[in-house]
């Protein structure tokens, strides 16, 4: 009997160090998230990323697995973010005529959104007594993760904390975005996509793409332009206000 337990432990020890286990767990957790999301009739509050992350964090904490060990397997999924970002050129090209006609409005709206995102997050966190590290790390939270981490580093914040703020913002924007847009009666797919992409980068864009191609193209465009606007504006404003 104890021999069998030892054997099982050996199998676990072997599997838990191979990338296959955590890659498979990532995909399984996402399937769980998607199934719950679809069974709920696409309830935006049951975001599949949120469910998958909750399932995986629970498993890792219970089994005492380090994030670095998990990431060795999960990196294969993570890597595809780059090629997926490049692929955003495809919906953008399909919608190019519409984008061209609204060029000025797009740029003005994204700059306004970029400033609102940073100023409101830092202002509210400051009023509620957030630590200095938090204020510097939360400022670029609406920007896609790699750029946001670069901005936080330049301000003197904690890039890994910024990554967490970015993901949380993405999930919040994807979940709450459609609700607030309906509440404000903003029905135009261009405006809806632009708003979600500016506020919640790739996670919001992923959701917009699933709902409507025009919204998805505008969300992807907004994500790229917002990264550019915020990377230029936040460090400049920080110099003035600090």
């Amino acid at each position: 009997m104890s021999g069998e337990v030892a054997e099982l432990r050996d199998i676990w020890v072997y599997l838990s160090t191979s990338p296959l286990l955590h890659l498979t767990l990532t995909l399984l957790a996402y399937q769980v998230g998607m199934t719950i999301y679809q069974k709920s009739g696409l309830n935006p509050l049951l975001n599949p990323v949120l469910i998958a992350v909750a399932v995986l964090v629970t498993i890792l904490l219970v089994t005492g697995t380090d994030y670095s060990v998990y990431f060795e397997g999960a990196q294969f999924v993570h890597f595809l973010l780059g090629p997926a970002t490049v692929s955003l050129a495809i919906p953008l090209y399909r919608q190019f005529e519409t984008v061209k006609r609204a060029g000025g409005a797009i740029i003005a709206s994204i700059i306004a959104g970029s400033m609102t995102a940073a100023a409101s997050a830092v202002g509210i966190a400051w009023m509620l007594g957030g630590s200095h590290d938090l204020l510097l790390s939360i400022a670029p939270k609406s920007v896609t993760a790699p750029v946001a981490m670069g901005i936080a580093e330049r301000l003197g914040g904690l890039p890994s904390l910024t990554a967490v703020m970015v993901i949380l913002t993405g999930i919040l924007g994807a979940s709450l975005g459609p609700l607030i847009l309906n509440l404000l009666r903003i029905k135009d797919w261009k405006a809806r996509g632009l708003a979600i992409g500016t506020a919640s980068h790739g996670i919001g864009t992923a959701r917009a793409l699933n709902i409507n191609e025009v919204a998805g193209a505008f969300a992807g465009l907004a994500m790229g332009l917002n990264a550019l606007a915020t990377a230029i504006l936040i460090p400049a404003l920080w110099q003035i206000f600090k």
Partner: protein
Amino acid sequence: MTVIGYLTAILCCQLVGEAFVTYLAIPVPGPVVGMVLLFIGLLIKGHVPENLAKVGDTLLNNLSLLFVPAGVGVMLHLSLLADDWLPISVALVISVLLTIAVTGGMMVLLNRSAKNNAEPGS
């Protein structure tokens, strides 16, 4: 070109993008420059080739999955999140709602005034 051919093309765009931003030390991510390069390629080509659409649409239809590994990184900061949970949660929720309202509202208003200017009296 085959599906693998276009996957290679996408990776080449990303690679050139990464090299470009590293060389110029600009704060834009390499894949965003890669996106611009692929976009220029599409402008030259004049349409989206079927096999490129297969690769791109597969990646984009499953975009949410790709954020899961980074999201699990939340476990590295559980104690910091526990200490500052109130400012974090209030700031993130209100800020995301405000950002969506401002960006979406402004886009609707600017589009409306543009339309009114283009078609007076309509």
